């Protein structure tokens, strides 16, 4: 009874049943009704299809918007403002570099450019008594005698010191060719010097230049001598008369402009004094803006290709900050990741696909790899910090710790891809090998691997592309710290491309923003290239069994 009542109720609620019973049960009406219904169903069908297509379009539209926005933001950074100006190199201007520039551009030139000019116009000099005699012109080395450093030469805070003699051999090494040339020139200019002893500031050898610029790769004894000479005031950075003459000279050059000039020329609204209610809040004054405009019209300020971005390492000064160190760091780190992951990944996959018995251990490994692939990448960073840095004592921020952390993250990706490639090899190939009496390892090495190698490469490239773009775990192990130089050994601190983008993004100066965007474009270009390569390899090696 209950069921029947339910049935009746259902029938009443169901419109399609209800409409069949009315008296106007003519065939025409029914046809009309059915056609109407069909129309509705067709419309519903179209609507649904439109929704699904719309979803694809939303995704595609986002992609377009996203890329266009990044290109608009990053493209301006391909150009960098430079100023054509007179630069006066002279002994007076060198310690007050602002004086080297004409007044109208003094505040427009980049600090970094000024610093570079100062460094280039100076040369490390060594103060030494020169014993001139007849032989000096021919054999200037004979004019150098060992010198004594006594307590009196040393600064007051270094008085616990024994008098010391600096041997001739070391002095000759520090003076170098340029210094001896100077002695010869002096002798030629004034032959009457013969027989006298004169204290001279001589330009030093490359070794000395390096020391004065902070190089630390000198030999131990040489380092001690150089430090000693420095303390005793025997070393200085002097004006490079060899390059610019004793009076100095004025040259016209393109020099890098300050970031404000650059940003103003690129027409950003936030740089324009007119965009602010109170002009004092603007980054540059109205007068400065007018001056930049005028110089720009005269062709004295222009936007040139930004090669600094690709040739320099990171810097705190936005206009000279570049990506070179980060690109090299990325290549280094990811190269190591590849070297670690490819063998381990391929061996693991071979084990799981070709050798492993179906037991608990194998199942554990399989579940484990799948779980590992799903663990958030940041936890690999936590592991890297706790295990590699705190337990194994790897240096923080180094190439080594970055590569080790990323390798653990990339390994499951490569394993999963490699297993798929091995599984795609048909069993008939293996059976043929076994039938010829090959062992399991011979079958794998001689038959399975050669035909699956392109699949393995494709998977590895995709894994590597993922590693290149990964940031979170590297932040945890310290790869975002400020690293201006490219790494040389695996224990050197390094930055990588995404970490560099992140650290530029977190800078407050606006000049860094467009550099971050350009960095993103570089990173995306690398990734598109790698993924394109993977697609190419896959397409090229596609075969049906």
């Amino acid at each position, binding site marked *: 009874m209950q069921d029947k009542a339910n049935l009746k109720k259902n029938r009443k609620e169901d419109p399609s049943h209800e409409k069949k019973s009315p008296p106007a049960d003519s065939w025409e009406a029914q046809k009309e009704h059915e056609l109407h219904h069909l129309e509705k*169903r067709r419309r519903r069908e179209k609507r649904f*299809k439109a929704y*699904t297509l719309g979803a694809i379009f939303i995704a595609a539209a986002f992609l377009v918007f996203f890329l266009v926005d990044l290109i608009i933001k990053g493209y301006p950074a391909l150009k960098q403002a430079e100023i054509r100006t007179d630069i006066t190199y002279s002994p007076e201007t060198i310690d007050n570099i602002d004086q080297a520039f004409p007044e109208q551009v003094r505040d427009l030139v980049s600090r970094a450019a000024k610093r570079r000019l100062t460094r280039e116009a100076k040369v490390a000099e060594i103060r030494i008594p020169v014993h001139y005699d007849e032989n000096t012109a021919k054999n200037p080395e004979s004019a150098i005698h060992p010198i004594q450093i006594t307590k009196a030469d040393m600064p007051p805070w270094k008085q616990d010191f024994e008098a010391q003699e600096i041997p001739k051999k070391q002095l000759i090494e520090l003076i170098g060719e340029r210094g001896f040339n100077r002695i010869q020139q002096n002798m030629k200019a004034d032959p009457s010097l013969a027989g006298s002893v004169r204290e001279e500031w001589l330009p030093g050898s490359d070794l000395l230049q390096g020391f004065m610029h902070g190089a630390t790769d000198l030999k131990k004894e040489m380092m001690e001598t150089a430090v000693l000479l420095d303390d005793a005031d025997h070393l200085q950075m002097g004006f490079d008369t060899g390059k610019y003459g004793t009076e100095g000279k004025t040259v016209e050059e393109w020099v890098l402009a300050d970031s404000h000039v650059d940003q103003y020329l690129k027409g950003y609204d936030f740089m324009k004094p007119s965009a602010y209610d109170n002009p004092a809040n603007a980054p540059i004054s109205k007068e400065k803006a007018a001056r930049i405009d005028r110089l720009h019209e005269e062709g004295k300020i222009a936007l040139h290709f930004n090669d600094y971005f690709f040739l320099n390492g990171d810097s705190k000064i936005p206009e000279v900050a570049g990506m070179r160190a980060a690109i090299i760091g990325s290549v280094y780190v990811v190269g190591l990741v590849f070297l670690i992951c490819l063998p381990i990944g391929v*061996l693991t996959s071979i084990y799981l696909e070709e050798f492993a018995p179906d037991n608990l251990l194998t199942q554990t490994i399989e579940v484990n790899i799948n779980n590992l692939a799903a663990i958030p990448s940041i936890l690999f960073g936590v592991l890297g910090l706790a295990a590699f840095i705190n337990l194994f004592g790897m240096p923080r921020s180094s190439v080594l710790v970055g590569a080790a952390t990323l390798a653990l993250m990339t390994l499951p990706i490569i394993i999963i891809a490699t297993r798929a490639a091995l599984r795609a090899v048909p069993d008939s190939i293996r059976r043929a090998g076994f039938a010829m009496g090959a062992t399991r390892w011979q079958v794998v090495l001689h038959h399975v691997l050669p035909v699956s190698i392109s699949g393995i490469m494709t998977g590895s490239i995709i894994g590597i592309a993922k590693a290149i*773009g990964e940031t979170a775990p590297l932040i945890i192990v310290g790869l975002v710290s400020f690293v201006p130089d490219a790494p040389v050994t695996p224990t050197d601190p390094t930055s990588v491309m995404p970490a560099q983008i992140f650290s530029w993004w977190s800078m407050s100066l606006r000049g860094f923003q467009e550099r971050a965007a350009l960095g993103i474009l570089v990173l995306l270009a690398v990734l598109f290239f790698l993924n394109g390569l993977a697609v190419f390899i896959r397409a090229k090696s596609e075969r049906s069994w």
Partner: protein
Amino acid sequence: MSIQDINPTILLLVTGLVVVLVGRVGYRMTRNRTAEIADGGEELRSTPDYYGWYALVWMFLPLLVITILVAALELTGVMSVPGLWVAAAWIALPALILMPVIRSIRSDLNARILVERVIYGVLLSAAMVSIFTTIGIMLSVLFESIQFFQHPSVSVTEFLFGTEWSPGGAFLESAGRGTEQGTDADFGAVPLFAGTLIITGIAMLVAVPIGVLSAIYLSEYASKYVRRVGKPLIEILAGIPTVVYGFFAAITVAPLIVKAAGWAGLEASYQNALAPGLIMGIMIIPFMSSLCDDVMSSVPQNIRRASYAMGATSSETIKQVVLPAAFPGIISAFLLAISVAVGETMIVVMAAGLTANLTANPLAEMTTVTVHIVDNLTGDQAYDNPQTLSAFGLGLTLLFMTLILNVVSTIVIRKFRMRYEGD
């Protein structure tokens, strides 16, 4: 220059080169020996290359084991062995072992057995690396978390149910100034969980409809050609690094949202939860889409045909037949997508805030678990400071959440598979 001054990189390279040379010589000499045997008319039990590898195994395997042991001892600080000794051992010992090994090679020696056993061992140990990684992650997170929870100013219940997160006081406290300043470290993680949940929720609101619908289009409607173009197009979204998404969310989307909200008369923070949520959703679309695509493609064709035979349109077939059949798979994809969203770091680090704010307003500033892991581990506090250690507590919860989501999704998928195998 003393012996200690040798650059380790150079030492490594030179030793490596010499080792390769010694190995080649060993291999060649063994092959010469087998050629002699074969010329003598005797038949070898393995192919000649196996004898070469046999010699190499004897030359280098014991040494490798010893080196690993020494490295382990060095790392744990029990003893330290100069690198020069190791290098000398690597050059001298194989050369010493080589002669007796070559003499031991006879026609009835089955070199293959040892070599293949070693290969098996190598393969197995490579496979164990992933196990060690997992154990490493578990232990490192667990140990530091225990340290965190044992800290006097922290309790598990407060961590799980407390609504106040201000670890800043911990620093003052450990400096002995906590009480006099009246600042107290609070480690109630509920605001972080809530922030994570809301941002994840927003992301799912974007990713699930777009992901599922685009998967339906690609697997049910699209022609072969459209599929060939459309699928990679969506996969591009998956290849974009998260730091790029983060930059986009922070620099472009967040200001747009603030502007739009101001236009609608609402007030939005520049670090609102909406921007990272939306962008995270976009990031997850390809993940969701390709998983759903796989699931729907694996629905047997004959049940679709049955539906068409009954006169159903495509959309009716999809809605009433394909989707219900694929439903468990879609649910499991959904769970995996949640675990991706919960663990996502860069987008929220760059676009979401740092202030722990317990609110449901997506326009307000919000923070997540991952943001605080990064923030606390990159700060300049001491490593054993509770603020730093709190990152491990958060890491542990994150690990738990993702593992549970994964396990549940695996279970769902397994049940789904059973249904077809039963047919």
